[in-house]
């Protein structure tokens, strides 16, 4: 245990090699020491390299971090990674967009030539080809996607930690180690794309399944386009205001209408092929499956309609999350899903694209943060950190200590209740955890007009309909 504490204090990235469960057996002072040392280390390394962080520190009059709370004013607003103006995209100013991203990462982007780049998808591919960055984009609620400059190594670290969580959650080596004993990977989603989930699935296809030949994607050839996601968000925002007719479409996207239309037509065929392949190739086998609840439910309904049920082996693993926000699922949705799948072993996480290490849900229904995440609860009105004791309700903020190339501190848009600072959870794990009730601050009470990752594919489809139907 003392090894874990010393290792994490020295370098949070060493969590990649840790026994995951030990992170939930730390005493309060051990966890705080890891958090404080990590904050100090990241601040010292990144302040000179990231002008925005330096400016924030100067504005806040912060020169050193002496307590965990000292770092709260240095957490970026959740808008930071989408702070570029949309006009950069509309006017094709990918040079400016690159310069903006360069201010948020220590990876040198100065030499990147964006001549000829017209779409976000092309820009992401360019960065991937020329630098260590495997950019991650979010789903954007107003058409603005956050762009997170995660490196290729960090992508690998993220899925490795996830595998260790599955292996160690109920105790060291209590579960299967998918990194050494590969399992077929099933993804009811896109093979190609740059969302956190798709990036993760691709990594898992290699690390968990041992290669793409042992993986099955619903859309094995389709690309989940960041440009379309961006359009979907803007369309939804414009529809909510009754202004959809005024939305202008970027010419580069219009040029790809035929491609999208062809994909739309192939959708039903893709679904049939997916079910056929799942049944033929993996029937009765233990598989690794990763999808959010609403997608799983849709999939299960489709499968049951085709007379398929109990298709996978009993020792399969499902990892999931995302709640059921944005979609109304029947009360027995999990039963329907498990009936179709044939197993019910699952790990549920609270996570966000911005985090490298997510928070697994325990039997008590609480989401536990691993020690490389320093969570805060902020007063929603003042933004001041609430005491790190008892149970606190307010705005969730997080410092992800894992990334050394970008600042992992972020204030979220989520209202949460956090406890576990001083008393362990009834499940026995120590350290701060979230209670199950998590909601967006921007959600109007009684209304729900948000896109989150659970609702995004639907919005993606609607955007393609709009694009294909557009006569501009």
């Amino acid at each position, binding site marked *: 245990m003392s090894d874990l504490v010393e290792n994490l204090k020295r370098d949070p990235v060493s969590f990649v090699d840790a026994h995951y469960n030990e992170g939930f057996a730390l005493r309060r002072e051990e966890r705080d020491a890891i958090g404080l040392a990590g904050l100090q280390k990241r601040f010292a390394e990144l302040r000179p390299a990231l002008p925005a962080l330096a400016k924030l520190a100067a504005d806040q009059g912060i020169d050193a971090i002496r307590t965990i709370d000292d770092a709260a004013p240095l957490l970026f607003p959740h808008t930071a990674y989408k702070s*570029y103006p949309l006009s950069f995209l509309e006017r094709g100013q990918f040079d400016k967009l690159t310069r903006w991203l360069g201010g948020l990462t220590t990876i040198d982007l100065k030499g990147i030539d964006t001549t000829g780049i017209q779409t976000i998808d092309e820009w992401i591919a360019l960065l991937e080809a020329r630098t260590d960055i495997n950019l991650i984009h979010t789903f954007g609620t107003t058409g603005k996607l956050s762009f997170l400059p995660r490196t290729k190594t960090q992508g690998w670290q993220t899925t490795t930690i996830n595998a260790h969580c599955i292996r160690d959650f109920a105790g060291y080596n209590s579960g299967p180690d998918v990194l050494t004993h590969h399992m077929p990977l099933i993804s009811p989603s896109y093979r190609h794309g740059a969302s956190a989930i798709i990036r993760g699935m691709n990594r898992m296809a290699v690390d968990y399944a041992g290669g793409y030949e042992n993986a099955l994607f619903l859309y094995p050839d389709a690309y989940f386009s960041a440009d379309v996601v961006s359009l979907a968000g803007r369309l939804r925002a414009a529809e909510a205001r009754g202004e959809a007719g005024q939305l202008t479409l970027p010419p580069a996207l219009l040029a790809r209408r035929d491609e999208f239309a062809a994909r739309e037509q192939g959708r039903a065929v893709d679904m049939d092929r997916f079910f056929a392949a799942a049944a033929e190739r993996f029937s009765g086998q233990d598989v690794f499956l990763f999808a959010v609840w609403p997608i799983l439910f849709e999939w299960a309904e489709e499968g049951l309609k085709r007379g398929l049920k109990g298709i996978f082996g009993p020792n399969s693993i499902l990892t999931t999350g995302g709640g059921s926000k944005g979609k109304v699922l029947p009360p027995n949705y999990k039963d329907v899903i498990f009936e179709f799948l044939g197993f019910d072993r699952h790990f549920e996480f609270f996570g966000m694209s911005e985090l490298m290490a997510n928070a697994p849900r325990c039997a008590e229904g609480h989401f536990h943060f691993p020690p490389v995440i320093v969570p805060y609860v902020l007063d929603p009105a003042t933004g001041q950190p609430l005491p790190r004791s008892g149970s606190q309700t307010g705005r969730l903020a997080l410092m992800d200590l894992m990334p050394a190339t970008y600042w992992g501190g972020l204030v979220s*848009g989520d209202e949460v209740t956090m406890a576990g600072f001083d008393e362990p959870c009834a499940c026995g794990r120590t350290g701060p955890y979230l209670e199950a009730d998590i909601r967006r601050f921007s959600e109007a009470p009684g209304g729900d007009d948000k896109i989150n990752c659970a609702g995004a594919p639907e919005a993606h489809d609607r955007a393609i309909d709009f694009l294909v139907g557009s006569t501009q």
Partner: protein
Amino acid sequence: MSANFTVPLLLRGQIIDEATVEFGGRRGAVSFRAPDLSRHLNELTLSTPSRMADLYAISLDEIFDFLAALGKRLHPADNPHLQQAFELSRLTSGLSDSILRHHYDAIPSFFERDIVRDLAERLIGIDYLEGWVEQPATLLPETRLSIRAVGARAVHIIAGNVPVVGVTTVIRNAVTRSDAIIKTPSNDPLTTAAVVRTMIDMAPDHPITRHVSVAYWKGGDQQIEAHLYDPGRIEKIIAWGGFAGIKHLTQYLQPGLDLITLDPKHSATIIGLEAFADDATLDSIAKRLALDVGVLNQEGCVNARVVYVQSGTDAAGLERANALGKRLFAALQSLPDHLSTPHKAFDPELKAELDALAFVEDEFRLYGGRTNEGAVIVSQSDSSVDFARMLACRVANIVPIDDIETAVRSVNSYTQTIGIFPESLKLALRDRLAFQGAQRLVSLGGAATLMRTPQPQDGIEPLRRSVKWITDETADGDYLASMAVS
């Protein structure tokens, strides 16, 4: 917060305050109780339109007298109903106490005889309200045409961002001799009720009192709305409010039901190069712009949000825009308390957007925005911020432009008011701005301070649409009979 407030149902002169249903108010914290409206639906609507005849047994002069007498009882200092409404509004409104107080104190003035008479005359015409008006001779000398404006049965779904909306609804209903069911909003459920309750205290059996009801229900309640929005029961729906709410209403539309919408709007500003003529001019422009942005704490649809300034976009132009931004921020901070204050519930999502501007310092310059004091964002190119739609709580975005055309093109049918400087620019642009969709053009500084003279709203004449225009044609009998034979 517990439900300490009761929002009564005011039903044609009756007060029903057996409040059994709890509702959550806006801004998270406040809740209140109201009676179960579904139990009173049949009394709420007028079973037959002929029951409006009692309104025609009184003269318009008597209606003016009645309203004037009511106004005298509406001084917040000695009206307990308004005092209670004020206390609830302090919790639900986006306006600070000092601004709310100013608006409450102004309520009696709306009821003054001359003011109400002027409104009736300008927005409809007293002769049409009072009787049949014979029209000038037509091309057919055998016929005569008379027209009268007759009241209608209407549901009013009113906005709650400023208290005056409910107050004028009551007045307009009275002078048009209409029958109103006023649905109050959760961000101001009591002010209108306080006015009508005072009316009930004064004269519970007066025809005007018997033809106005005030109710709260949660917008979208199927049981209530399906009953109400029926052409057998009402003729008009007059709806203020959000896109989603109005979209929801449209499912009930059918022949015989007229929907008058006062949609959500945004307002803007266009400032010509003349603003930078000299220091004194720039100072005056900053002060006038501060009024357009800051009055009502930017809670109104009339308030300026995006400000197009013909400063130029080269380095010198940006400097000019920045200089205006700096002065605008200072002028906002100096506005008197009864007009504008730091916002008491600054939108945290907007704050996050302001904070994120630090990551694009080359593109935007920010004045203020540290806590709730308001802010001025000066774009360093001719693009507005992506969150222009969220601008509120005294936050404006100055956008420098080279060509005034850029500003003209930004105008659409969601643009309500445009404050303009100088006057010559207003004259030069006004036709084109009107084609583009703008609905109200004002001298810079007048966006939220003028509107004293009754006038059309949002490009329509809501009062003329809220009544029924009935014609009476008379023709000589021999003339008519002659048409039956070849």
